[in-house]
């Protein structure tokens, strides 16, 4: 206890409990007042519409959760807040599109792309890896395999091609960003790295413009799902029930995006719990120097975190691109996911998920209750965020900071 001290106040005395009780009582009162104020707006709506908005909010929140997850992963590993995430979404979506939407990839581009991806993966821990002949062999075999997969012709392979090419491409992008922009800044002030992500965003903006132009690109990824027999939309008929509305409809896009978010969430929870890299990543996030001193390869872990984040960004980009289209407007979505990140707590994976859902829910409900005022995207999530931060300064699930002196 003497080596460091904690600011948090011991939580056992009666006086302290009383203060806590008063605090929660006040919060409860405020909540009741708020609900009473809200009630007339709610009463004006049919119950079915409210239920619909609530469900839709949760579904839309899935996309926010995906975006927030990607931002949280990087923050967890390195403390850097990634402003480039929106453009990584766009870039990931476009790389996916490039492989998904062509009839066949020509040999040379497929080979160059594979070689780049494999090179980034093989040199994960630095250029020295290239001296290891074993890795060179693995790299060569990997390049050949990947080239082969990417060259599979026709529409039957389009999803496989898209996901392999898009996924690995996005991961390589994340690795490249980390290697060339973030790694040189190790040991420098944290905010320099945060600004670097801003620069990365601008460069990705330029590169996507350069290769794909400004054209909005439709991403027919959900058509594939329709082709394999999934219904285009889910609808509920509540005309004669308490719902009092004739049709409640949810798009396949939204449902799939939500399922993707849930799967990503489960995958990462498992990853952090049970894999070595995941455990190492948690340790690194706790204390970089300490982690290094016990033999964890901090560089590898940071690189992996960026690769995962880019992968998540690509998934979010594909989901959003499928629902609307791939365009320079897409990165704007990340801005509106920021509250989701903070709401849950910067370091919490579960928090990012819950934060995303909460933001989606709040947006849809306020859109329903207060039409025409733009309350939904610009105001409500940030008001909720402010309130949560005042009540819980570290977000809903954030780690309570222990301050040492």
């Amino acid at each position: 206890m003497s080596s460091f001290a904690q600011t948090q106040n011991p939580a056992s005395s009666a006086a302290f409990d009383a203060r806590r009780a008063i605090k929660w009582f006040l919060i409860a009162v405020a909540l009741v007042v708020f609900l009473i104020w809200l009630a007339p707006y709610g009463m004006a709506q049919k119950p079915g519409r409210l239920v619909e908005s609530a469900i839709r909010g949760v579904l839309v929140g899935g996309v926010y959760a995906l975006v927030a997850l990607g931002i949280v992963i990087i923050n967890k590993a390195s403390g850097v807040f990634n402003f480039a995430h929106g453009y990584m979404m766009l870039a990931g979506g476009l790389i996916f599109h490039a492989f998904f939407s062509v009839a066949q990839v020509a040999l040379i581009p497929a080979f160059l792309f594979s070689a780049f991806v494999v090179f980034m993966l093989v040199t994960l821990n630095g250029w020295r890896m290239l001296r290891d002949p074993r890795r060179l062999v693995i790299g060569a075999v990997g390049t050949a395999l990947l080239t082969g997969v990417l060259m599979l012709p026709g529409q039957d392979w389009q999803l496989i091609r898209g996901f392999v090419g898009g996924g690995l491409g996005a991961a390589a992008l994340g690795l490249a960003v980390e290697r060339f922009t973030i790694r040189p800044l190790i040991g420098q002030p944290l905010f320099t790295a945060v600004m670097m992500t801003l620069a990365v965003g601008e460069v990705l903006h330029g590169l996507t413009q350069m290769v794909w132009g400004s054209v909005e690109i439709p991403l027919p990824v959900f058509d594939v799902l329709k082709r394999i027999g999934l219904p285009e939309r889910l609808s509920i008929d509540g005309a004669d029930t308490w719902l009092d509305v004739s049709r409640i409809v949810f798009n396949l896009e939204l449902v799939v995006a939500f399922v993707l978010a849930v799967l990503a969430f489960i995958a990462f929870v498992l990853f952090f719990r049970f894999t070595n890299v995941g455990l190492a990543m948690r340790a690194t996030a706790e204390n970089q120097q300490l982690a290094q001193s016990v033999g964890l390869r901090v560089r590898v872990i940071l690189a992996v975190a960026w690769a995962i984040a880019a992968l998540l960004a690509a998934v979010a980009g594909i989901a959003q691109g499928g629902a609307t289209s791939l365009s320079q407007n897409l990165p704007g979505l990340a801005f509106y996911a920021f509250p989701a990140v903070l709401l849950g707590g910067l370091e919490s994976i579960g928090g990012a998920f819950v934060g995303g859902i909460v933001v989606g829910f709040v947006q849809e409900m306020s859109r329903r209750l207060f039409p025409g005022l733009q309350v939904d995207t610009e105001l409500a999530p940030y008001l909720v965020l402010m309130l949560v931060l005042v009540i819980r300064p570290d977000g809903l699930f954030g780690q309570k900071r222990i301050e040492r002196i």
Partner: protein
Amino acid sequence: MSSNIRPSGVFDTTYSDDIALNRTRGEKAVSYGIVALLLLIPLLSLEGPFGISLVPQSLVGTIIRIAILVISVQGLNILTGYTGQVSLGHAAFMAVGAYSGAYLARQFGFSFWLALPTSALFTGVIGLLFGLPSLRVKGFYLSMATLAAQFIIPWTLRYPLEHISNGSRPLDVPVPDLFGINFGADGAMYYIVIPLAMALSLAARNISRTRTGRAMISIRDNDLAAELLGINVFSYKLQAFFVSAVYAGIAGCLMAFHTNNISLEFFAPQVSIELLAMLIIGGAGFPLGPMFGVAFVILLTQNVIPALVPSLYSALPSLLPFLAPVNVFAALNPLLFGLALMIFLIVEPRGLAYRWEILKISWKIRPFSY
């Protein structure tokens, strides 16, 4: 940092010499020279006897834009650079200054000279309000609370206060008028903005080196230790929010009266992030940081890159024949800015002002390299 090194043979004999900003005759000459040169620029840009102006006319406008943003970033430097509270809502505070100044002038016929301090103080109060979460919230969470200001303030201006802000439509701002001189022309506005920018930069410098500033830097470096020295941390954080918002308010108000026409697009969230980028690039926590940062970014995006684009545009498409030329053109602006920023951050991660201090030291101790 450089303050302890001066050319050998120069000694301070009194404490007031020691704390003076310009301690040698040379330093004094350079400082006054720069000031004089700045004040002369509009005259130099006028057309001379042979129809030639010594400096390009657009330079006046560029310097005004830089000076207005320097005021704003000086405020951000007090809050973020010295006190360590990273703000992502600075542009919103500029909006408050701009719109309150415009409102006072339009609605109540306030003159520019009255509207400027009033709107600045009002912005300060708003800043104080958004500084309240700093009682409990720290670090990036606080940044996000300030980002909330960046959304809540423009929303409030756009919808509930539509009668003041003209909503999503632009708002005309009357031209400032002083003793019958119309300040519409850049040349005259220059003589309001530049002295103000200098005075406010000097004030920020003075704040940073006296009691208040030391308290703020203590909070940035170690807020717990600061408290144990009797510094009321929360009070100083609020003061920092206040004064930073006052600076933003002044900058916003100047911007409104300079462009004579404002809209909420001027104060988008992106702008807040850019202001922060300017500070980091210039060197957060250095008195000269804001000047370096703003000048670097503005000159880069508004002068250097546009000058480079045409030649690159004529060269690149032939080098990259598989890309559509129009795509290449559209890509150049963000690409060049991003790359310049990247290279710069890798070469000098602590900011231009830091590099400047090092250069100054090596100049003073020349010809020795240590």
